[in-house]
């Protein structure tokens, strides 16, 4: 298929995904609020964040979602359709953190409509601390399917 796209037939259970990395700066935190429209004060107002019991402004749920999605889709390619994503928040991402995403293929299966699905476990870390886990399913194209 090319174009950096992985096909369902190319995936094996137990495969490790390449590591995704992002350096989170204050600029990125502000750009993400502007781009994602989530103006809850903990994401842009340091004094409010501290009253909320955390040390600084922190990145929001959308950002955690996007780190999980990037870990999966940077590997799988642009024709990947995410059909399910469950995230559990375990900690915060702050400006200054180095974020990494790792993933492992858990299961290959076919949906009722015959399409090829892959279940993937994802872990997002800020430094060494796990801040979010993702449990995802994607639909991938088939080799020779186009």
């Amino acid at each position, binding site marked *: 298929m090319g174009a950096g796209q992985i096909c369902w037939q190319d995936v094996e259970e137990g495969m490790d995904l390449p590591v995704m990395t992002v350096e989170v700066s204050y600029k990125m935190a502000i750009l993400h609020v502007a*781009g994602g429209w989530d103006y809850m004060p903990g994401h842009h107002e340091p004094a409010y964040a501290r009253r909320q019991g955390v040390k600084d402004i922190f990145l929001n749920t959308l950002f955690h979602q996007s780190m999980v999605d*990037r870990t999966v889709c940077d590997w799988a390619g*642009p024709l990947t359709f995410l059909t399910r994503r469950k995230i559990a928040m375990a900690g915060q991402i702050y400006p200054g953190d180095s974020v990494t995403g790792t993933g492992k293929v858990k299961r290959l299966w076919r949906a009722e409509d015959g399409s090829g699905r892959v279940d993937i476990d994802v872990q997002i870390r800020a430094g060494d601390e796990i801040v979010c886990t993702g449990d995802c399913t994607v639909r991938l194209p088939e080799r020779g399917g186009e």
Partner: protein
Amino acid sequence: MRSNQAVDESGLGLNFGTYEEALGWIGRSTEANIGEVPVTAPMIQLYCSAVEDGNRSYWDRAFAEEHWGGVIAPPGMLQTWTIPMQWRPEGRRTIAVMAAKVPLPGDKPINVSTEFEFFEPVREGMVITMIDRLEAISPEKTTRVGTGHFITSVSEYRDQHGLLLARATNILFRYRVLD
């Protein structure tokens, strides 16, 4: 010592009340939250620049039209499309989510988990509508951040023709910081 008067600083339009009152709200839904702007490629790409996502389906119009029928939006920004603008000439709305509307003592919200099922890609030109339904409220719990209630709600996202795009089950902890 903090006063007992709860103050909403969250911008979500929190209602305050007791757990017993809140239980009577289970099963209720919000009005439809209709996106104030349609899905557009520049908004998609501004978001992608913030998470450094170079996926061609979000950036390369010819590629996206061939494979998806148009530029699509990353699933990670789905909630964005129904968040109101922060200021409008006629006055701003607040988004209606049951975790905020349900009367409870907690004045601080923090997300615990979110599970999305996605049925259709979000494409340029769509206007997204979200309706949120209250599913469950836990008894009072104390965690490392404070004391409050875990609220479970289910949101459905549709386009302007009623096509179901995604369903999200969200658990949020609404709490007060202990003095």
